[in-house]
């Protein structure tokens, strides 16, 4: 359940971004690489509980999963893949060097003035 630590960090970042702004958060846009190992459902679940009583209570957590990029160590081909580990479309070799796909970022929040 590292999602608990991530949700805590996310809520802190949102509170810091809002500062003294008395707005209510309607939607949170996250971008998560497919190889990052984040379980979206777990993150939504714990964030929902943590956000109770805060300005982000009830906000929709929108998680966009971006494909990962890898380099085949057999034939050197660069390729994109979904999930945590890919297969080279050139030579069929499993896995490879991960170039991107383990990132997690808070892109934006949509708020409404109260």
């Amino acid at each position, binding site marked *: 359940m590292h999602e608990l630590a991530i949700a805590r*960090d996310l809520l802190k970042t949102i509170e810091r971004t809002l500062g003294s702004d008395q707005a209510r958060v309607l939607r949170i846009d996250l971008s998560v690489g497919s190889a990052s190992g984040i379980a979206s459902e777990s993150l939504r679940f714990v964030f929902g509980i943590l956000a109770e009583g805060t300005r982000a209570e009830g906000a929709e957590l929108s998680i966009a999963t971006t494909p990962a990029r890898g380099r085949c160590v057999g034939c050197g081909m660069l390729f994109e893949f979904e999930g945590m*580990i890919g297969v080279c479309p050139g030579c069929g070799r499993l896995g490879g060097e991960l170039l991107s796909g383990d990132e997690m970022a808070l892109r934006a*929040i949509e708020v409404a003035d109260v």
Partner: protein
Amino acid sequence: MCDTCGCGTPSRRTIEVNERLLASNATAATHNRDHFAARQIFTINLMGAPGAGKTALLEATIRNWRDVSRVSVIEGDQATERDSARVRAAGATAYQVETGLGCHLDAAQIHRALHRMELARGDLLFIENVGNLVCPALFDLGERLRIVVTSPTEGVDKPLKYPPMFRAADIVALNKCDLLAHLTFPLDEWTDYVMATNPRALIVKTSAVSGFGIDRWLAEILQRRRAFLERHSE
């Protein structure tokens, strides 16, 4: 309220943030790394499933490191001080972090532990993470070397089932190799899976019980510590 017509609908606006998650952990980890570099403390984050043999390998390392430097250990477990007692008996100084509900150690916990420990210049510091093949992979602690300890009893396909953990490793130690003769464990297949997940990982085969591979294990750590000390000497 809606600025356009005053209809009573709250006006919506978007605030761009574009910040990495766990950035606060990354900041704390950088602080720890700088602290270690200034004091020439080579730090190893030891990760792996419960029962892989992390503590046993640590005990073997401590017993063989006496002539090189002091060894200090930060032990992370959900509960008990049992591992701290074991590594103290082997000759290290130890500080126990009981994580309670936490499934991993984070950089801030290491920072707090450092304030309560008496580390000397040139110490070798091990951080034995909570036994878990998932969560610790995501948390940089400020270490210089990440080692994943695994064992043939865990099955051949663990690198494929837990890619972030194996991807995080500089060294993958296959411990309990004394058991290989009694198990169906296709070593070549396992090696392929480790390499598929992390082509830059170095595999070291050990047995903390029989002593098999311990010389190589020590040599790999010594070599990396020496390079670190050369980089960070005044």
